[in-house]
């Protein structure tokens, strides 16, 4: 039976720590205020949408592996723990086998930049404390350590589309009974280097940061649940393939939908960048969410927020189905559909 259910979602975003903050921000529809981030060598600052400090020090920071962890690791763990919810103790006791897929585009850019700056100054004194945290899979490793999970763990790198690729990998592991549950996280952190890079392509782009997480299992949650209905193929674009065509192909593989359904778009609120997606979904008559417009561009985390927002709205009974359209920052477009399923067996 090829059924995969979303048992929990989690989010850390410029709106705050938790799905509730994400939900409120999207419902409100107002862009999160930007903050200034100093850019070395410039008189003016870059504007970013940063993750605010949590209301209290998260308990997970007491774990030996997390005390000095990078922001991206903290985002990853924060979102993941919210998603697993009440399953955490049984996972930590090893009673429930959970795989991890952590998806990144920029990765641990702050520690990487700091380490490389030290290398440029004098490699003989570059800090051995920083280097291990620069490795792409450090956040996934720390999360596995916190969960006490020694089963399979992947870190995937790519643009925004990588998050749904990660969900597909997780679904495969569940189908094959490699794991009983799987966490998929998309995470990024704010740094002037990333914001500077985004400015090369569009000066109006505002960098965001944070993480989104989905906790998947094969069994249906009690009473009702959100089900992964499909993930489209991933359509490349770039040198030889047209971006508009890739987005249209995603659209063609997803059900048409109706006025009672939700569409979570990758749109930035920048007309030229959004045109391909806007054209592909022009006929959509239902409700639309576009988290990036509110929260900023955070690549794999943005893609995760789209899915989290969709699943959260379904779980709350606001819609019966939701389509997600992800147009990667650099190379691939992909989509997914989630539906609300009633647990008829429990009735």
């Amino acid at each position, binding site marked *: 039976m090829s059924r*995969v259910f979303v048992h929990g979602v989690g989010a850390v975003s410029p709106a705050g720590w938790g799905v509730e903050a994400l939900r409120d921000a999207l419902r409100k529809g107002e862009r999160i205020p930007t903050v200034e981030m100093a850019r*070395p*060598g*410039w008189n003016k600052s870059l504007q970013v949408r940063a993750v605010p400090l949590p209301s209290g020090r998260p308990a997970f920071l007491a774990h030996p*592996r997390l005390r000095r962890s990078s922001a991206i690791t903290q985002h990853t763990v924060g979102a993941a723990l919210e998603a697993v919810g009440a399953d955490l103790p049984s996972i930590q006791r090893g009673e429930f086998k959970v795989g*991890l897929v952590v998806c990144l*585009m920029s990765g641990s850019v702050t520690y990487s930049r700091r380490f*490389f700056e030290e*290398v*440029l100054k004098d*490699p*003989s004194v*570059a*800090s*051995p404390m920083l*280097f*291990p*945290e*620069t*490795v792409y*899979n*450090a956040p*996934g*490793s720390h999360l*596995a350590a916190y969960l*006490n999970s*020694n*089963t*399979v*763990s*992947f*870190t*995937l*790198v*790519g643009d925004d589309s*990588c998050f*749904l*690729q990660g969900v*597909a990998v997780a*679904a*495969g592991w569940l*189908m*094959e009974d490699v794991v009983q549950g799987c966490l998929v996280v998309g995470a990024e952190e704010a740094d002037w280097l990333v914001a*500077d*890079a985004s400015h*090369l392509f569009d000066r109006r782009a505002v960098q965001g940061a944070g993480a989104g997480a989905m906790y998947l299992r094969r069994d249906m949650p009690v009473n009702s649940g959100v089900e992964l209905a499909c*993930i*489209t*193929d*991933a359509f*490349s674009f*770039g*040198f030889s*393939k047209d971006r508009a065509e890739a987005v249209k192909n995603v659209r063609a*593989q997803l059900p048409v939908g109706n006025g009672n359904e939700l569409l979570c778009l990758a749109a930035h609120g920048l007309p030229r960048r959004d045109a391909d997606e806007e054209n592909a979904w022009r006929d959509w008559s239902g409700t639309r969410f576009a988290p990036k417009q509110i929260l900023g561009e955070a690549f794999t985390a943005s893609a995760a927020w789209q899915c989290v927002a969709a699943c959260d709205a379904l779980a709350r009974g606001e819609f019966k189905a939701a389509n997600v359209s992800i147009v990667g920052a*650099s*190379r*691939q477009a*992909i989509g*997914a559909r989630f539906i609300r399923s009633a647990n008829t067996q429990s009735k």
Partner: protein
Amino acid sequence: MLFPPPKKTENSHRVVITGAGIVTALGAGWRINADGFRRGRQAFRPVTLFDVSRQRSKIAAEIDLPPELPATKLSARQLARLDRATKMLLLAAHEAWAQAGWKPGEDLPLVLGTTGGGMALGEHYVEHALKTPDSQRQQSTRLVNYQAQNQALNVCDAFDFRGSITIITNACASGANAVGHAWELLRTGRAERVFTGGHDALCQMIFAGFDSLQALSLTPCRPFDAERNGLSLGEGAAMLALETLAHAQARGAVILGEVIGYAAATDIHHLTQPHPQGDAAFTTMTTATAVAGITPEQVDYVNAHGTATPHNDSTEAVAINRWAGARVATLPVSSTKASIGHTLGAAGAIEAVACLMTLREQWLPPQIVAGKSDPACGFQIVRQPTDASINVALTNSFGFGGANATVIMRRWA
């Protein structure tokens, strides 16, 4: 559609290799690498790619890239922008693609492993951004081309195929995870063919990183030696054309070998140090052999992760001893990193090709370094060029963050 998967058949599919490509410091291509591995040739030299004058270690296994790449579908503009890592990747991909005799297509997944992608370009980007903050000259080109997904798309463009792109970055297990994930896609009927492998080029940041940890040896590395003192870095790429047996036979392909087992696990002991008892390595070897339906007695050669760091090799030795049981005393083990260094995200794929070479040509790759074996090694370290009857080969890959993977391959006769 990536999900739901096609309806599962009753039996899992057998997965065969129909093409293999490799480039290491030994050279580009199967023949020169097979000859080098067979003789245990070492390919280390002083680093020339970046300044190492302030580093402890000053050697690595650098590749001399050929002046021109083989002809592909890439445009002159694309070719002009290729970085060193992508050139290696394309060299290996070209060899594997040509050997497999594959045709362009729209439904061919690409699964790659890397730790750095085009990191050297990323370094230039950062250096430029810091030193000339008001100039954006060539910055967007550096930014686009340093990304691993762009390197993957170059492979797709070069051979005119499309499909889902999955880039696994599980540190030094990335290449093995890529081959293993590709095998899973095929075994479970989610694809008929998958192009897979790994690549990584030397770069200053990673070299300095390992040097800062004092993990680099000042001399060519000596895996499993009692007095080993660290690893030597290398660079390279390897690609494998994998397909289901039914697909390969239907098109009359020449079959080079079979992938029969894979397993992955996470060592949560420490970010950079393995569990002293090698629990995760033991798990992956045990699970992979169980999945393959064989016992350690049926494994004829182990290509060890064997980085030559004190921690890795002692842990791996313990894990191999535990896994092999009574077989350990006669089990031939070697680390081809003694020849080509640690190629990080490429290592698992390169070592899979090295295993394929042993299966195809029936020899064991030696590590010719004088010295005394670590007493923890209950197995036979291959010290001399040796002809042998090899039916099954197993390769281990372990990485920072505790990523562990084992791949098992069988001779096709």
